[in-house]
């Protein structure tokens, strides 16, 4: 088959020593930026952009793609070790990953995260090669009404994310939606909740909120607790996932890969959302959903697979139509243009060696990341043994610097600090941050999609039901809500039966 021939050619190109070198640099830098909060792949890519001008286009693209991949791997490392997500897509990994670390199982968590990412990443790349063009066309059928319904469906899964009180989770979700409204109205561009602050016209900003809510607050609360007791098991039980771990994780990884890949194809879906959906799916399908949040390996394997699968999925519209998925791929596209490559439907025809060389290098990149990260697990785990005084001071330092580097702006740092304090209070009073983050991510998308749909349909709400894809998603949302009510009812009945 022609695709496979081209793939082999691409692998060959990617294996040239020069390209291997750039791939390695890319994944290394990517991992570092993923580990450090705030400094994300976008920052790294824009810093390295001038360097890439002096380098052959294919090698440059390989390096930039490596950065994007590496960042995802790196982000999960800090989520598991210190409950601080390096990237928004690693927020969900904090939930069970950190719990596992506290039980002394940081090694298997890190290992499974790496393996799940690898399996999902390489598996979906195969799928990409075989089915990219027709999938891209499918993605085009998503217009504003479909996005609205999909996002609403995404919001309903918040009921599955809640570890404790659903009411509190819904409160946080509503607060997140309100926060999402800060900024300019999408249609009339009137400022809302900006209080005259210029920087707030673009909203509070997701990275700042994530670093504050998870990073700073984690430090504050641990510092408070550690005066009373030791938080971590000092004995680390094993460095690699056990056979049981593999048995528990293989199905979640497969499910998450499918889920993440197909969600990634829809242009504009951030990789954050598939992680939330995968977690909720695994919790729903599990035989012991109550254990989620206490250190279930499926809660790490699923989301990690999902975000890598989604990253591959976003390559579908990128490579077949030239439509980038988000900020980092947009920069990469821009860079391609400077090199004289024309990213778009013609890229395959005009520069097949670039296209297939990139795909080939992504396989190599995945392998490199696995090889890079597995031996590092031993070292990472030792990080937990650094005395809190030093460790957490460093973390706060990185959070402060990281939030500033998002946009060279002090306002972002202030926002992070405010949310850090807020996050600390939330943890004290047992309010979860994940529904807030979900709402903050989905809120603007829902509002934009709703507004545009209303303009297109001239004010008719029927548009969401008349279009098949949209109707399906709204139906799913309804089902999810109903099923959660039903299971609560059943739970209530069980409790009643038990008491009799």
């Amino acid at each position, binding site marked *: 088959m022609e695709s496979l021939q081209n793939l082999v050619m691409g692998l060959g190109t990617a294996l040239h020593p020069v390209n291997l070198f750039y791939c390695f640099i890319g994944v290394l830098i990517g991992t570092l930026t993923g580990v450090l909060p705030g400094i994300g792949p976008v920052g790294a890519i824009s810093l390295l952009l001038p360097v890439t001008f002096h380098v052959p286009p294919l090698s440059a693209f390989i390096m930039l793609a490596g950065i994007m991949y590496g960042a995802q791997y790196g982000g999960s490392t800090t989520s598991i070790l210190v409950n601080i997500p390096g990237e928004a897509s690693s927020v969900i990994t904090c939930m069970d990953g950190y719990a596992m670390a506290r039980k002394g199982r940081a090694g298997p968590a890190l290992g499974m995260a790496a393996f799940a990412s690898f399996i999902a990443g390489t598996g979906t790349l195969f799928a990409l090669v075989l089915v990219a063009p027709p999938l891209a066309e499918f993605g*085009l059928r998503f217009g504003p009404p479909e996005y609205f319904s999909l996002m609403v469906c995404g919001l309903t899964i918040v009921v599955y994310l809640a570890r404790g009180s659903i009411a509190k989770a819904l409160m946080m979700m509503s607060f997140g939606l309100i926060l999402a409204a800060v900024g300019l109205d999408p249609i009339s561009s009137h400022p809302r909740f900006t209080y005259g602050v210029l920087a707030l*016209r673009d909203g509070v900003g997701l990275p700042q909120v994530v670093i504050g809510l998870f990073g700073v607050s984690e430090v504050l609360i641990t510092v408070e607790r550690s005066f009373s007791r030791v938080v971590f098991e000092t004995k680390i039980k094993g460095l690699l996932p056990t056979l049981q771990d593999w048995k528990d994780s293989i199905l979640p990884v497969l499910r998450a890969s499918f889920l993440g890949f197909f969600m990634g194809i829809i242009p504009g879906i951030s990789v954050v959302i598939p992680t939330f959906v995968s977690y909720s799916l695994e919790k729903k399908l599990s035989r012991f959903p109550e254990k989620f949040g206490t250190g279930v390996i499926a809660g790490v394997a699923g989301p990690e697979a999902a975000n890598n699968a989604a990253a591959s999925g976003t390559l579908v519209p990128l490579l077949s139509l030239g439509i980038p998925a988000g900020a980092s791929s947009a920069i990469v596209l*821009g860079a391609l243009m400077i090199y004289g490559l*024309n990213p778009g439907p013609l890229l395959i025809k005009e520069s097949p060696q670039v296209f297939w060389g990139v795909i080939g290098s992504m396989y190599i990149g995945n392998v490199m990341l696995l090889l890079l990260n597995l031996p590092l697990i031993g070292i990472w785990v030792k990080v937990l043994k650094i005395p809190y005084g030093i460790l957490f001071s460093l973390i706060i330092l990185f959070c402060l610097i990281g939030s500033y580097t998002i946009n060279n*702006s002090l306002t972002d740092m202030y926002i992070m600090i405010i949310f850090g304090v807020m996050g600390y209070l939330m943890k004290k009073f047992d309010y979860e941050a994940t529904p807030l983050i979900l709402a903050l991510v989905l809120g603007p998308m829902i509002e934009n999609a709703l507004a545009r749909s209303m*303009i297109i349909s*001239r004010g008719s709400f029927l548009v969401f039901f008349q279009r098949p894809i949209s109707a399906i998603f709204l139906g799913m949302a309804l089902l999810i809500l109903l099923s959660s009510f039903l299971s609560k009812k059943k739970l209530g009945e069980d409790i009643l039966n038990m008491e009799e």
Partner: protein
Amino acid sequence: MKMKIVWIILIATVVGIGFNAVGYAQEKYPSKPTQIVVPFGAGGSSDLFFRSLTDELSKTMKVPVTVVNRTGASGLVGADFVANSKNDGYTLLGTSSAPVTIAPAIDPKDARELDPLALLAYQANIIVTRSESEFKTLDDLVAYAKKKPGALTCGTSGIESEPYFALELFKAAAKIDLRHVPISSSREGITSTLGGHIDFWFGSLATSQSLMKADRIRGLAVCTERRLESFPSIPTFAEKHYPQVNVNLIITLLGPRGLPPAVIKTWEDVLKSVLANPEVAASIKRLNYDIDLQVGTEKLRTYFKGEVERFSKIAKQTGLRK
């Protein structure tokens, strides 16, 4: 005799230092690293434009010239920063003209104290539709819109963008009614157009050109004076008797108000030579820009004032003006 020599040496040293001090005050510009603040995101159109210049600029000016991103509020955060910096020529604003022509038109309080150094290049704004659409020419669009007012939708990246003003000018000139759909991300906008969810997209050339080359998107008209070299079959709005629809993406370099004449002159000369460099010119061309260097701070100030007035009129008519 010895005392005399000592005195002569002392006086010579003092005078020598004195001359040095005078020399310091009039040290040649530039003598420090210079930063060009781009108020939009890394990898964006204007960002890539200035990044493709920095190598050559650094070589010519013999100091490091770097691009620094300060995004936010559609370019106003960066504009604010530069307007409040020292006007010694070491902090400049490299941007598309929107923050200085459109923002003040919508809200006069958003005007900033900036002096234009030069206009460097422009990129055409173009109205497009998907290839499968029934609208093959601009005339088809106008005819349909006249028959069914308000039936067609046209997207732009928002009411604070140049294409929106171009759209409003077009609607007024052709006396038609198109529903405007703001889609802040141009890639989402083009995707919606490809999928047929909106009928037309009014945006800059860069967004659509690769899809146009692949025949997925059809261009109906361009806002430039002359037809595009890359797509010579697309007519201009002027040819179609709508010459007032000439709003394009213009790249400009500005500084804080009151730049010293030496700084302005230096940049005028440097830009002339850098933009004439064939490698730089090739990169800019690949980014879909056409080089058109215009200098003369007074002339440009008048030009920008005119643009602000033109857009203010439209903003008042459409109720945008706050």
